[in-house]
């Protein structure tokens, strides 16, 4: 059920949070061009989200300072914009920036995977949501699951950990200490013979608790698996167990991820 003519101005919140695609953005900026009050609202909400953005202070590594200064010295500054160019201010920068950034993107691959994995994780959460148009009952369960994962991924204290799995592949964990929950994914897990299965554990002073089975599919991400009930000192463990899983780990963990709690 959608209203016949959605008010273009409803998009103002999504717009200032960059939660729009290019088409929405262009449409909204056309709307803005003819609406003084709307521009004023955008200005106030931008200040608001700027404060939300400024809650995390993370001093860069010292060497980045000189590196940035040297890069600036080589970078020609743009002249002031001419008055008749419209719309003024924010949106125009976007085009300018596209051109300037490429040269700066010369980083090693090594640590990138962390973000890629997280993004994949997020993407899966989204896809998970997108696949739900089938059965109504499944939809509710799946929505609750996606919502719980979203809560972890969006938690203010969320941190991300990655580690190599001894037998191949990489595990990625996004965790909220506060919520005592985490989302686990794995990439490149070798597919096991039929009689065996991967089993995830929380292992710590409180004992070893099964968090469920993880199925490897060739070339695909395993998970995401939502794990609740984290206790202090827990690590995430992964073992190979007989099909159906075990009550206690029966083999040496191929992954033991310290959660730093």
């Amino acid at each position: 059920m959608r209203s016949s003519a959605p008010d273009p101005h409803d998009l103002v919140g999504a717009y200032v949070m960059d939660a729009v695609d290019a088409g929405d953005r262009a449409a909204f900026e056309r709307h803005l061009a003819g609406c003084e009050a709307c521009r004023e609202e955008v200005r106030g909400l931008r200040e608001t989200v700027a404060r939300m953005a400024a809650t995390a202070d993370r001093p860069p590594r010292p060497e980045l300072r000189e590196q940035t200064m040297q890069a600036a010295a080589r970078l020609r500054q743009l002249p002031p914009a001419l008055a008749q160019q419209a719309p003024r201010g924010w949106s125009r920068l976007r085009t300018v920036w596209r051109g300037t950034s490429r040269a700066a993107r010369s980083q090693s691959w090594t640590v990138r995977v962390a973000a890629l994995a997280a993004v994949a994780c997020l993407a899966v959460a989204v896809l998970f949501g997108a696949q739900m148009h089938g059965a109504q009952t499944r939809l509710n369960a799946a929505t609750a699951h996606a919502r719980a994962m979203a809560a972890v991924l969006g938690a203010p204290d969320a941190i991300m950990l990655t580690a190599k799995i001894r037998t191949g592949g990489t595990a990625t964990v996004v965790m909220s200490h506060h919520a005592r929950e985490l989302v686990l994914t794995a990439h490149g897990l070798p597919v096991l013979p039929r009689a065996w299965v991967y089993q995830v554990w929380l292992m710590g002073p409180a004992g070893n608790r099964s968090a469920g089975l993880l199925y490897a599919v060739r070339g695909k991400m395993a998970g995401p698996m939502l794990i609740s009930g984290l206790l202090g000192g827990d690590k995430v463990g992964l073992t190979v167990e007989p099909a159906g899983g075990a009550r206690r780990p029966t083999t040496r963990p191929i992954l033991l991820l310290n959660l730093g709690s």
Partner: protein
Amino acid sequence: MNVRRSGQPADVAGLAGVPPPAADLAGLIGEVAKGDEAAFRALYDQISGQVLGIVTRVLRDPAQSEEVMQEVLLGVWRNAARFDPAAGSAAAWIMTQAHRRAVDRVRSQQSASDRELRAAVAVIPYDEVAEAVQASLEHERVRHCLTGLTAVQRETVTLAFYGGYSYREVAQLLGIPVGTVKTRMRDGLIRLRDCMGVE
């Protein structure tokens, strides 16, 4: 260092190296616009931590976040002459760019191929017991104001702003209509604005 200039009371000795107060940010951008490298250095000292903070929060990956932080600061250098104080505060101008670039990076990666991902995975150094890649923060006021929202307002705003999701994706994630997401984002932000006392 000619960092503290226009609009400041008489120079105080021994302030070299001390970041100027936030009110100076717009003044610094004015100096940067004229190619003043010392002013750019001072601006970097003042804002780079916050830029890296929000970029890391959205992107999560430290190496990429540093890269984006540098792009943002270089963008400020390059575009300083185009900063328009009438359109908003200097901090908002910079943080807007920081957030947008982080989100752009997230979106461009969503289309990165699986093959690329697997190739990247292959070069991670082995580490049996991994340590935390830290992210995060919290600023009491924003936190307090966020608690004043309804659950749906808070979820939509948080997923969009800190999670880097589009409003359509947020609608899918939460299983609520797109129209509702748009209005909750808007009224949620308005409530935050009023709670924070933004003019």
